[in-house]
């Protein structure tokens, strides 16, 4: 799934406030510089609630497996360049794989989603491989 978004000063400021970071820094030309993991703002597709699972978990991990609850997980977040206000980011996310594992508390499913972010100049800005743990 591919989608594009304009990065506003408001987006950058609200993200910094949400993570408890200081006021965003400004580049020499006055544009705001986003925090390193800012691309998380555009990670989840903005679909209507009716398209989400009943627990509201992100659509990206709504795969057909016998597990309802999403717990823990991890992330590998690569940052190739900065994001500035005024940029347009294109987001491309895909399901990378589902692995079944047997843990102490029963069967677990590791759902991996890879998301790539590119700016208006076609430069790759970030890539995240997120792992969600699903269990019954």
């Amino acid at each position, binding site marked *: 799934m591919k989608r594009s978004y304009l990065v506003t000063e408001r*987006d950058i400021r*609200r*993200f910094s*406030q*949400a*993570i*408890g*970071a200081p006021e965003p820094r400004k580049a020499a030309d006055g544009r705001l510089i986003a*925090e*390193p*993991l800012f691309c*998380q*703002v555009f*990670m*989840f597709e*903005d679909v209507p*609630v009716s398209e*989400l699972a009943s*627990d*509201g*978990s*992100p659509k990206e991990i709504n795969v057909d497996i016998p597990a309802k*609850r*999403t*717990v*823990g*997980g*991890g*992330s*590998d*977040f*690569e*940052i*190739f360049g900065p994001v500035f206000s005024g940029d347009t980011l294109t987001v491309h996310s895909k399901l990378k794989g589902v692995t079944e594992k047997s843990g102490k508390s029963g069967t677990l499913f590791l759902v991996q989603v890879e998301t790539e972010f590119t700016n208006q100049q076609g430069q790759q800005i970030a890539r995240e491989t*997120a*792992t969600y743990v699903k269990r019954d």
Partner: protein
Amino acid sequence: MSNATSLPKTHRLKITPTETQVFMFSAVTWNRHQIHFDLNQAKKEGFPAVAVQRGLLGNFLARMVTEWAGNQGRLERLQWKVLQSAFPGQELECIGQIKETGSSVNPGRVILEVRILNSEDAVIASGEAVVQLHER
């Protein structure tokens, strides 16, 4: 050439997430997963309170690393795995320790081992950060 020896070997940052912060992070990332804002749903899934997002924990680590590097370097990669849930009101300590510094090919590359502990010293998340120090 900048090198890691001028930076402390260990850096710590204490953060106590609040319910407001968890709410703001869900809002700013358009994450509608109920365990992050609906106490009843969180309890149904076995949590004592709404859970701090995996992504927000990553930002706590990123803040610790960028505070450590100051204006001397840039976070290039952050990997973290959530081992235990964290909840608003818990004091979390983010710790970064230099694991590897530079190589002949890239003397400015520093790898930090990163983790988040709660006040009982239980590991909430652990992983690795790659920081590229600026050339001088």
